């Protein structure tokens, strides 16, 4: 039931992205390659959501993962290839973790139905290891900190419609994996749960802080995705530590995924609405971006408010409810700050430089569809005063902070944050490594010369034996031998 939400979001985001890509790439030189990888990734993504058993899921998921590489490197720039390299390395690590997990889980019964998976995980002999592998494996796709480093590089560098599906739909496949495979509601996993809650909140604030320093709208949006996925991670963590909350976790995460996919898709696609458009179009675009940003920020009467209400419903079941609730509100401030930055960056520059006209209609679907969520039954508390207040004050503070940041932008943290630190460190280590390499090469050369000398010595010795043999076989030697034999014979025979 709640898993259907993933099908809905996948279909809507991919369809809108395809529609706008049609215009976006009308004159692009290698659009054939784009469409091939787009179609493959989409097939994989839909297949993963619809998979009836583990093996179909794994195959679809792998197709999606590998085909998305073609989307990331589509522009063929050095930055795109670097992002692609980081992406494929991380994605492959994810595949390996998942493969290990699936091998542990299903054994030879490779076509275990998806519905039986959580129970099977709960009953598996190495449950804790299995859950760890699943959390890490899907966490890479979901951009969980610190496995997120590929995301701020790969999402912005892709063509805008591809960014929309990467950040809107594909990242949700990671969430979908968590919901389908983790034993939510089947036993307590306290440690895993606490780690998830902590990692989730770290992601929420880390994404917000680093994202606020970015100078590029799409990179800021990517960091916003990391931050938002942190909220989902928190919910999953609560679900792991308290089995009773499982149902609430399922519906909250599904609702959250649906809301975030559509709103984030709308924001990414909005970055690329054309420059040459009429004033009216530009106004519609600005309004749409504003509405989507409100939703991500969690302002009252938006899909974001509905999603956060659902998350609140999860968090209150946790043992540390008041603290977590506070942190959720603080997180909402961060989300809003990022949205102010995104709007400022995207609207100030009137969107991307190189772009072609793209269709407005599919984009408006993304913008407006989430509003259906707040008229859904069960969304009544959204209209209570208490909730309006609790979603207004973080948003208001966020807007204030965001505007302040726009006046005086902080120093930029390079996209890929932790990765940058690591690669700077690696660059520092390079001379040392080079020295080591040289030393080992020298050792190999030394070994070779010694071996050659050794062989030469032995060849020479064998040569001496050869010469000895040659001498023996010459007449002189035979003659000497014959003479020797004759002398011996004479000595033996003559005395008689």
């Amino acid at each position, binding site marked *: 039931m709640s898993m259907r939400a993933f099908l809905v979001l996948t279909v809507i985001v991919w369809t809108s992205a395809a529609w706008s890509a049609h215009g976006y790439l009308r004159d692009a030189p290698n659009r054939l390659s784009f469409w091939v990888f787009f179609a493959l990734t989409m097939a994989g993504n839909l297949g993963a959501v619809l998979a009836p058993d583990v093996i179909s899921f794994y195959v679809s998921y792998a197709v999606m993962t590998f085909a998305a590489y073609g989307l990331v490197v589509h522009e063929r720039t050095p930055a795109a290839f670097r992002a692609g390299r980081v992406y494929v390395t991380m994605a492959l690590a994810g595949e390996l973790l998942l*493969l290990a997990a699936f091998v542990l889980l299903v054994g030879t019964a490779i076509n275990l139905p998806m519905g039986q998976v959580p129970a099977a995980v709960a009953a598996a002999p190495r449950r804790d290891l299995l859950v760890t592998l699943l959390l890490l494996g899907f966490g890479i796709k979901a951009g969980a900190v610190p496995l997120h480093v590929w995301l701020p590089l790969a999402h912005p560098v892709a063509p805008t419609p591809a960014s929309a599906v990467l950040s809107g739909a594909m990242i949700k496949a990671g969430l979908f994996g968590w919901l389908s495979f983790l034993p939510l509601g089947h036993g307590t996993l306290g440690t895993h749960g606490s780690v998830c809650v902590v990692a989730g909140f770290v992601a929420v604030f880390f994404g917000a802080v680093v994202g606020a320093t970015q100078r590029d709208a799409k990179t800021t949006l990517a960091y916003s995705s990391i931050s938002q996925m942190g909220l989902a991670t928190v919910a999953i963590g609560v679900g792991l530590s308290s089995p009773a909350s499982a149902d609430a976790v399922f519906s909250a995460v599904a609702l959250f995924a649906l809301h975030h996919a559509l709103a984030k898709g709308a924001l990414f696609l909005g970055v690329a609405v054309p420059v040459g458009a009429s004033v009216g179009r530009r106004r519609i675009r600005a309004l749409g971006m504003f509405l989507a940003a409100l939703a991500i920020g969690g302002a009252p009467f938006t899909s974001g408010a509905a999603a956060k209400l659902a998350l609140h419903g999860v968090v209150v079941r946790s043992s540390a409810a008041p603290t977590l609730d506070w942190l959720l509100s603080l997180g909402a401030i961060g989300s809003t700050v990022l949205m102010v930055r995104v709007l400022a960056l995207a609207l100030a520059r009137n969107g991307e430089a190189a772009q072609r006209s793209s269709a407005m209609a599919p984009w408006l679907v993304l913008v407006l569809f989430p509003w259906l969520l707040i008229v859904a039954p069960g969304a009544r508390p959204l209209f209570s005063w208490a909730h309006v207040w609790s979603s207004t004050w973080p948003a208001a503070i966020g807007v204030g902070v965001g505007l302040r940041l726009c006046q005086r932008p902080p120093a930029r943290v390079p996209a890929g944050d932790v990765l940058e630190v690591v690669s700077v460190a690696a660059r520092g280590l390079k001379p040392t490594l080079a020295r080591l390499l040289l030393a080992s090469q020298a050792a190999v050369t030394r070994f070779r010369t010694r071996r050659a000398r050794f062989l030469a010595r032995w060849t020479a010795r064998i040569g001496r034996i050869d010469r000895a043999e040659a001498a023996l076989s010459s007449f002189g030697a035979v003659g000497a031998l014959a003479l020797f034999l004759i002398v011996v014979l004479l000595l033996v025979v003559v005395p008689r």
Partner: protein
Amino acid sequence: MTAENVLPVGVLLSSLVPALIIFLLPEQRHGTRTALNLFAAVTKLVLTAVIGWGVVHHRRYETRVRFLPGADLVLHADPFSLLFVTLSAVLWLATTIYAVGYLEGSPQRSRFFGFFSLCVASTMGIALAGNLLTFFIFYEMLTLSTYPLVVHRGTPESLHAGDVYLAYTMTGAALLFAGTASLYALAGSVEFVAGGSVGPLVAGHRGALMLIFFALVAGLGVKAALFPLHGWLPLAMVAPAPVSALLHAVAVVKAGAFGITRVVYDVYGVRVAEELGVMRPLAFVAAATVVFGSVMALAQRDLKRRLAYSTVSQVSLIVLGVAIVGTVSTIGGVVHLVHQGLMKITLFFAAGNLAEKLHVTRVDQMRGVGRRMPLTMLAFTIGALGMIGVPPIAGFVTKWYLGIGAIEAGASWAIAILAASTALNAAYFLPLLRDAWFEPAETQGGILAEEATLSLVLPTVFTATLSIAAGALAASGVSPLAWAKLIATREYQP
């Protein structure tokens, strides 16, 4: 003389007789030679199919000839030999078509195809051998009939490679002979039986049996390119592409892996070997080779050398599967015999096409070749992704069974080896694919204007398709996996 007695010999003769005729044919009779080759390859396929049907229905196919007192020459067909026969027969057909196209216009084709057929005949003999002595004879025949193929070009480089090849394989032969002779001396006769036949000797000759095992495995390990006996393989890359394909996918390397599997399962028997304590060292050597081969492959700049080291690594996955005691890992190892063959032959065909048509032999020359030779590179991509283990290509099935088998047998460390192998395979194949497909290319003319000729592309695409089919249809009754399951269940039956 019933059909059951004649058919195994028929399979052997279907490439031995053409070999002899080809040697007698004048060099210029290209048409006749090609027709004969194709006729022989198809005949062999038909015979194989007939035997295959019979083996499934529990018929016994056996030909026995008196040779020495107490040591007959035996050809027989059991599921395992049939797996190898089928692989060789199918890939021989593909390689023949490829070789005809590849060598068009080059000299000494009569000699080439003669030894080529002889090589396949020896492989058939190895596959169908019913005891260790017969196996040894055909194994040596294989060594000698491959040498002319390795040195075919006659350049100093290829002659050197030939020397090294002979030095390695002859040393291996000496060890294998010592092992075989000692085992005959101990046991009287060494037939290949599921579950092994040396069990009763363990009580009295424990040390001797262990020593013989290592002699046999070291002798076979030369051809299977187990570390540190792999040195000849990268050098043998100077041979023409169809020979490399044959060497790596069907004949030589596989003969070694096949032999090790035979020794473990049908000479010693897996339980006896485990009791002797020789399986663990074998597994470690195989695991070391898997990692070593991949790391070396990463360091190569020459495309065929990279593929060669990849073979070193991948063939050891077969040995690893065999050496981990358990039904599932056996399935993984045995099925990889086929899967690795399909994928690696695709890669070598594609590498041959690149060298032949675009003179691309180094990995840094592969920029943009995807656009220029789309079919070839599509096949190469399938082969490479399969080696990495991307589903649904055949390599994934292997990895899956080896992984589960390792856990089942309590050898979880092997999972780390599999993961390392996957990661390293990705590290040396994915950059090639990136360069080939995502770098700009100067295409000339239409989409297939620069593609290789039909007789080169057809086998390449054919084997690539088989690699996908073997993985995607693994659950069907006629897949290599189904056959490997049959073999494993018969071996582990009490």
